[in-house]
């Protein structure tokens, strides 16, 4: 599968709906310090089921919801949606094998209610995790490298490096 589109609203500094289409090849995200680039990376980890608050640079999960600025009040909900397309020759894992596209989304309300959905149908965190299992992009996979952590792979203990390779098995 391949990532086709990402939609973010109310997540961290993205108060207004943002749509990012990825046309294939290399897409670069650029901008000054503090403008929200790493927040986009956080949004991607979050929609795929990231539960560890610290790796989202927060202390409580509700801190991922837009907290307001001097001009705008805080939002009540954060939502991220990821649209994946089939790559030629590959199919999605069951029960989505016949789909051309699959949509994965996650929503969080200030009162703590959290919702996952695949193709618009509510599901459990486990279903989202299973969908991404073994693709390398799951929350501990080798395919998302956070800011200032690239050298960790070299400094890691040999047992931890093994986990990286196992994910590709």
């Amino acid at each position, binding site marked *: 599968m391949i990532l086709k589109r990402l939609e973010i609203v109310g997540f961290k500094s993205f108060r207004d709906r943002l749509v990012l289409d990825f046309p294939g090849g290399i*897409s670069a995200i650029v901008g000054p310090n503090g403008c929200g680039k790493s927040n986009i990376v956080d949004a991607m980890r979050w929609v795929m089921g990231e539960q560890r608050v610290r790796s989202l640079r927060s202390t409580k999960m509700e801190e991922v919801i837009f907290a307001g600025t001097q001009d705008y009040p805080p939002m009540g909900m954060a939502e991220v949606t990821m649209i994946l397309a089939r790559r030629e020759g590959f199919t999605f894992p069951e029960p989505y094998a016949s789909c051309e596209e699959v949509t994965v989304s996650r929503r969080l309300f200030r009162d703590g209610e959290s919702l996952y959905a695949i193709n618009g149908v509510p599901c459990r965190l486990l279903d989202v995790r299973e969908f991404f299992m073994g693709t390398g992009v799951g929350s501990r996979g080798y395919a998302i490298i956070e800011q200032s952590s690239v050298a960790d792979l070299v400094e890691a203990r040999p047992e931890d490096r093994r986990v990286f390779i196992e994910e590709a098995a």
Partner: protein
Amino acid sequence: SRERFAETYQAVSRSFRHVFARLFPGGKGELLLTDEENLLETGVDMEIRLPGKRLQNVGLLSGGEKSLAALALIMAIVFYKPTPFLVLDEVDAALDDGNVGLFADLLKEVAAVSQVIVVTHNKRTMEAAGHLYGVTMESKGVSKIVAVDLN
């Protein structure tokens, strides 16, 4: 299972040798198992020989050399098993201009098998990208996307 790990490990270490030689021209990088008898628990070590230098432990590498060695392993895995997308957040921050060039060239080859999304402040990496998204906070504290033209 044991066989699957052995097969993956063999393939990734072949790929790592190739990718490492591209990022460190004249250098040699090898993956090694810490305990070959026990495939279910063995760790994976890295042995690096840079041109002219003695064989050394990865801990002695410089800041930029460590980033580059790590990128060699990540790309080696992705070449063996492409992923839906590869996200790299300022992985080129410690690299000198020459190494950013080598990295950006190889990234283009990775992008043939996986969607690549890279956050960077480096012009050389931006030039390698086919598509640029600019993020700004015009209205303070709220992020928006703008079109970016490299010049």
